């Protein structure tokens, strides 16, 4: 068993070609999913990426403070409302000036799915050549754990608390990844931290595909603090999210969806929800609603991948 694990790790190490540009200790909570992801990206893509980020949990580390920075990347700290438009301005100017570039727009789900969705959508329509990575911690964490459009049904947050009348979020979560894939952009993928090899491959694919236009990665990134989870369980949470089909791993080229990991016998969603406190209060009936939602999304994804495989996007509409 130990030997097997060692083999897996070595394979991932193969993708880590570059030095970690971040200082060793940075001000994230222990076990933070977004930190692990943030450190991983430049190690795979290289240190000459330009990274942009908005006010969020990633901001204190990504954006530096006053004249000091926690990393050696070029970066653009910007507003929640316009991140994708900023990245657009950068890549368009670099294009005009003939400067090679990899611009990575790195934002939370609040920015990507909610307040900044308009310009994310616009960048996708215009097929702007950069990589947008949404780390999804299912809420606004930096302002103290409020609900976002990707917060799942039932979850408690500080704006969807448990009360006598309302018991957590009573709306379903939005599927940001599928929304983006349906724009037929060159590359869309979901990924998470339990499947690093898959994540690395997808980052590299995006780096290549951005030569043809817009790329979107939707990365599931647990927030132990906001979700009430043990920091040591971050990777296990990711693993269970995949195994229950709560967060399926797939990719899409020009909208053609393909699973990159098929879960033969999905576990019940409770084996995921039990790992954190935000679902603690849910009754079996409530959990069933979440389970039904997971199954609906899985079914939809399956249907879309079959449909998309049958349809041919006109060549002229691809680039």
């Amino acid at each position, binding site marked *: 068993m130990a030997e097997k694990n060692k083999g897996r790790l070595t394979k991932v190490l193969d993708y880590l070609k570059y030095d970690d540009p971040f200082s060793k200790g940075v001000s994230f909570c222990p076990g933070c999913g977004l930190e692990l992801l943030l450190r991983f990206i430049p190690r795979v893509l290289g240190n000459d990426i330009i990274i942009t980020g908005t006010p969020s949990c990633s901001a204190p580390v990504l954006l530096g403070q006053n004249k000091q920075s926690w990393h050696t990347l070029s970066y653009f700290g910007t507003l929640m409302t316009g991140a994708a438009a900023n990245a657009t*301005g950068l890549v368009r100017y670099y294009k005009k000036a003939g400067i090679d570039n990899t611009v990575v727009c790195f934002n939370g789900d609040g920015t990507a799915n909610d307040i900044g969705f308009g310009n994310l959508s616009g960048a996708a329509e215009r097929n702007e050549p950069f990589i947008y990575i949404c780390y999804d911690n299912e809420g606004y964490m930096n302002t103290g754990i409020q609900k976002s459009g990707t917060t799942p049904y039932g979850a408690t947050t500080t704006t969807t608390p448990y009360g006598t009348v309302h018991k957590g979020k009573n709306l379903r979560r939005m599927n940001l990844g599928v929304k983006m894939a349906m724009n037929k952009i060159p590359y869309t993928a979901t990924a998470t931290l339990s499947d690093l090899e898959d994540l690395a491959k997808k980052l590299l694919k995006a780096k290549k595909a951005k030569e043809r236009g817009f790329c979107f990665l939707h990365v599931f990134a647990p927030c132990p603090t906001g979700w009430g989870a043990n920091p040591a369980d971050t990777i296990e949470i990711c693993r269970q999210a995949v195994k229950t089909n709560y967060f399926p791993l797939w990719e899409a080229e020009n909208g053609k969806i393909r699973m990159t990991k098929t879960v033969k016998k999905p576990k019940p969603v409770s084996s995921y929800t039990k790992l954190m406190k935000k679902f603690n209060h849910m009754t079996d009936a409530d959990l069933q609603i979440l389970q039904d939602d997971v199954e609906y999304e899985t079914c939809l994804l399956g249907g879309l991948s079959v449909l998309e495989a049958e349809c041919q996007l006109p060549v002229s509409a691809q680039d």
Partner: protein
Amino acid sequence: MNTTAISSNIQVITGNAAAAIAAKLARPDVVAAYPITPQTEVIEQISSFHASGEMDCELITVEGENSAMNAVMAASLAGGRVFTASSSWGLVFMYDAVLATAGARAPVVMVNVNRETPGIIAVSSGQQDMISTRDAGWIFLIAENCQEIMDLVLQSYRLAEDYDIQLPVMVHYDGFFLSYLSEGVEIPAQETVDQFLSVLESQPKRTMLRPGEKLGVGTHGILGGYMELRHKHVTAMERSKAKFDAIDQEFADIFSRSYGGQLEEYLTEDADMVLVGSGSMCGTIKSVIDEQREKGVRIGLVKIRMYRPFPHQALVKALKGKKAIGVVDRSLAFGFDGGPIYTELKAFETKLGGAKLVSFIDGIANTDITKTNVKQMIQMTADLADGKDVPEVTWVSYPKANKDKGEK
């Protein structure tokens, strides 16, 4: 400076076309914009220049004004020359990015075609959009006519991108009155514009956001660094005043048109009374002044061309020792007696050598500032000079406002 006049040509074009052609002549790298009345024609013209290959820029047809400002801010920080245009709600919708652009010291140039922004969707003129954003940290310039729109856009690039300034500049002009007004405009030759803007190339390179260069833009400034940046911003704004005057001089040498920099003074030297105005109303005011002068009325005009930073030193110099000053505002300042420009000028009253001030509010939401209205303003300013009792504020085209303060 070499003053060889390379042939220009005169065409009858709208104010919007003048802005678009000026933008083209400045050869921006990136243009991003979104349509809104009465600005739409600017972006349409640029799109057609782009489509015909006349304009070699990256044109980003964004999904909203907020993105337009964000895109040009970023492109500018990366090192590009940029242009955008908006108006009214569009300006308001880009407001957070407008602030970020100023704070980042991105030398963005844009035109804002002034239009009202009250709750009823007023597709009409008025400077309230400009006033609502006046302390965003941008340099604000205001044009009087189509020729001046053209000239101010060109001058803006020199000001915004100057190594000593590095601030965004907004050129304002009255929607409807100027956006759709066709006038003969002298369009300079590309070579002459290139020559005028070439000064910027000889300056030190500003810091640019480039791959691998390890530059951070937009950090969290919470400690002393933030105060330092704000102070530098304010001092750069102050520097832009003299710089703008100098650019105007240099512009005159090359293009044979001078306006006077921060302010244009019209027959002020021997005047006892002065009207202070801005934008298209100044043309009307000048023609009334000409008539009044023939009757021996010693009236002049101070036209505000640079509104932010507020040209208070230049205004004090121009207005000192006059008997009476009437300030005409095309916008409102809630809670003050008088319009916004009037209120600001009031802060320097003690430096004006005893000149008395009155406020005129007119031209809001397409209400025309007619010659009759201007005559009334001059008469009231003359009465003030003569020591007569004149109300502090007069809504010229809405006399009811002057009587009925209790209206609901």
